[in-house]
């Protein structure tokens, strides 16, 4: 996290105990006003999540009469009980999302780090060609439909896990960020010395370059982890098989029907009466909470790297 400007150590003058205001700072009154504005905005950003959490803990009947309230008349854990009882679909989606995220991030890092390293090396003869080859993809793109046709008809990846993993694997922008990172954090001399000791390209890359560029790799890794976890678009295009639906996409599909959960759970033979008594609204919100929780816990740690990535991306060789 970036440091906030201006020192705020109160200076003590001539031994007097009264703290003299540092003139770098705004006046206390203004400071209070600014704090209120910033705090309010931060609250607005966080509030919807808290609200959804509250809804998920509300009693379904109370909800039907009162609507969504910040202070519901009656609390209930029913939604979570329901989700965990009939939630094999939810668990499977969690599994799909985790698998896609892990697999995708690894593939993505391998492809991007290799490509970026090669085009960062001045000794690579086709360096210019492959740089341009990557950059062109930032300029022209075939668009949604031709990409869809390639993935579904040529590569036959429809309804496979690969349709969720591969389309997101590379990105010319990440390559550019990482290339910048290599050229600023890995001194040429170290690579030279490795070469003199007789190390090959792959050996140098694995043993010297990768350890030195860990922060850069972490940044890209986090970007792509987040991208995979939050992706629902590729599932929307390519996945029809209910067993392969990732978390975000499942949340999208249950929008109008909670029956999705039952149809895909083992005790699917529920009576119509049981169907009408399930906590629909609250379960939906409970699932939203469950899908968001990992991110909520992880993001304060991510944040630092994201800021780093932002600033690294702004600097070019």
């Amino acid at each position, binding site marked *: 996290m970036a440091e906030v400007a*201006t020192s*705020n150590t109160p200076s003590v003058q001539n031994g007097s105990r009264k703290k003299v205001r540092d003139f770098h700072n705004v006046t206390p009154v203004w400071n209070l006003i600014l704090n209120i*504005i910033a705090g309010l905005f931060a609250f607005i950003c966080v509030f919807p*999540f808290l609200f959804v959490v509250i809804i998920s803990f509300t009693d379904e009947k109370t909800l039907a009469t009162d609507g969504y309230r910040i202070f519901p008349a009656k609390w209930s854990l029913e939604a979570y009980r329901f989700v965990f009882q009939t939630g094999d679909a939810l668990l499977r989606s969690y599994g799909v999302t985790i698998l896609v995220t892990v697999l995708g991030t690894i593939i993505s890092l391998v492809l991007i780090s*290799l490509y970026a390293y090669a085009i960062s090396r001045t000794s690579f003869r086709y360096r210019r060609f492959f740089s341009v080859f990557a950059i062109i993809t930032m300029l022209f*793109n075939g668009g949604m439909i031709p990409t869809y046709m390639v993935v579904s*008809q040529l590569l036959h990846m429809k309804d496979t896990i690969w349709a969720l993993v591969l389309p997101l694997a590379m990105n010319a922008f990440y390559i550019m960020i990482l290339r910048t990172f290599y050229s600023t954090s890995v001194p040429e001399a170290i690579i030279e010395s490795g070469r003199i000791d007789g190390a090959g390209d792959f050996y140098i890359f694995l043993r010297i370059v990768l350890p030195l560029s860990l922060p850069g790799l972490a940044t890209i890794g986090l970007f792509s982890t987040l991208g995979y976890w939050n992706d629902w678009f590729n599932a929307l295009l390519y996945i029809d098989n209910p067993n392969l639906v990732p978390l975000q996409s499942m949340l999208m599909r249950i929008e109008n029907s909670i029956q999705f959960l039952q149809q895909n759970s083992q005790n699917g033979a529920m009576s119509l009466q049981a169907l009408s008594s399930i906590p629909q609204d609250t379960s939906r919100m409970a699932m939203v909470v469950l899908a968001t929780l990992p991110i909520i816990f992880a993001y304060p740690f991510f944040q630092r790297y994201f800021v780093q990535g932002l600033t690294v991306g702004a600097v070019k060789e």
Partner: protein
Amino acid sequence: MLLMVLPGAIWFFFFSYLPLVGTVVAFKQYRFNREGFWASIVKSEWVGWQNFKFLFSGTDAWVITRNTLFYNIAFIFIGLVLSVAMAILLSQLVGKTLAKVYQTGMFLPYFLSWVIVGYFAFSFLSMDRGMLNQILGWFGVEKVQWYSDPKYWPYILVFVSLWKSIGYNSVVYLASILGIDKSLYEAAMIDGASKWQQIRNITIPMLSPIIIIMTLLAVGRIFYADFGLFYQVPRDSGTLYSVTNVIDTYVYRGLKTTGEIGMSTAAGLYQSVVGFVLVIVSNFIVRKVDKDSALF
């Protein structure tokens, strides 16, 4: 070395270059062929510019272009003003710990997917249970059917987009404010400049290169809309299409629901071509402003 770029190059070939070949579908009467990608493309009949003619003769092209441009312009300018203001505000706060807490809070929406944000919006906008209608109820105002009345959506969409992006953008600006040489402020203070004068005469001029670059890069992408925002937040509500349909959602619906593959590829190509020109132009201007910040 060649081995190192090979996997990535193959990826680019399949996922970026082959789709470029696929854009010829825009000039064809697309017929799905069981034999696969090439057969579908080759065996479809050439129709020349007909897809484009159809696209631009209806009102669709006008509506989606207008929406895409209108929203992006609103996002760029309101977003710029608010995130720069927020960054300056954060930089002025006296307490460091609180400022960090605020930043962490503001950053949160950036990490959530559009599906989740769509649910958030629903908790406020739902017709019979949403918070907004309850608040309106307290004032004795009639309930509003948010998801079927287009007139509110320009505001809602702009609000949601800003809500999601301001925290993130203000961090970018804050980072560069913190990079400004402190002695400039000290000199200004000795000259008796007020806080406001310092912001106007030091902070903003020092920020302007990055502001210009961020804005130009956004302008280069003005023909692309955030699909998630326009698809998830209005819950794909048909009555709202007049104000929520953008080029990206139009192309998607052409593929998945209406089946107008040729015409919607034409819309996609129109987007790519205009987008390309805009990227080139804005990059050219960025190069003039600050060579190092140019994309290429």
